[in-house]
């Protein structure tokens, strides 16, 4: 009886957490406390003329691939916006400075390289388009 209650409790907690995480993942957050500045030399690439979408990925991340294809296909419609993907593990100093905690994390940078929004988890296509329209 006791162990059945434990199993039930674990399944309820996991379901609640899974639903919460699903709702939150990929949401583009424009209320950022610290406004980080990214230097082109830190990401090994020039910044986009009007904006840069900086994606942090890792080898142990399934949705990073989907995020890459979403972002590169959206960006192909905006000639002045650039999509740059960096490997989080080989850029740990940058990861710590920008407080990247999981992959994929996507930063939206303005033309100066200043962070104006970020999405933790795979963002949806329409969310990305909406964010770009506001930049």
């Amino acid at each position, binding site marked *: 009886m006791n*162990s059945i209650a434990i199993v039930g409790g*674990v399944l309820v907690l996991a*379901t609640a957490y*899974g639903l919460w995480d699903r709702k939150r993942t990929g949401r583009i957050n424009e209320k950022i406390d610290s406004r980080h500045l990214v230097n082109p030399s830190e990401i090994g690439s020039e910044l986009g003329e009007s904006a840069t979408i900086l994606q942090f990925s890792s080898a142990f*991340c399934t949705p*990073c691939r989907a995020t890459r294809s979403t972002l590169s296909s959206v960006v192909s419609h905006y000639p002045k916006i650039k999509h740059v993907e960096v490997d989080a593990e080989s850029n740990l100093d940058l990861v710590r400075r920008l407080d990247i905690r999981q992959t994929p994390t996507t930063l939206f940078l303005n033309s100066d390289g200043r962070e104006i929004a970020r999405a933790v988890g795979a963002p949806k296509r329409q969310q990305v388009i909406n964010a770009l329209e506001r930049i």
Partner: protein
Amino acid sequence: MIDARGPRWSAGLTSIVLIVALITRSPIIIILQLVQFGIAAFAGPPNSPYAWLYKNLVQPRLSKNFESEPVRPVQFAQLVGFIFASLATIGALSHVWLLFTIATSFALFAAFLNSAFGYCLGCKMYLLGVRFRSV
């Protein structure tokens, strides 16, 4: 690249096995699951017994069109499962049932999330682990 449905099916089977282990407190069952985790973590998920079951019993009945995904995130999650199942096995063999229950519950939590929500454990844990390890 592997069939993305395989790991989710395996995680479902893992959840069932872990539920049975929690209820019966059977060392044999948790050891069998430990062996499954160990083979998947160290020899690769496609070489594990659950993957064999999936390929021979389940995949032939499913659609031939499927999404594929990289194998390394799956393998990382199996390593996390292996660590929890090791603790659970130590608990079961030494009759420290609190250790057994907590470790098995954590493994069930992760396996259920993976199966029901496609949760990517490597995305959330790997980068934090690297950041922590090399501070």
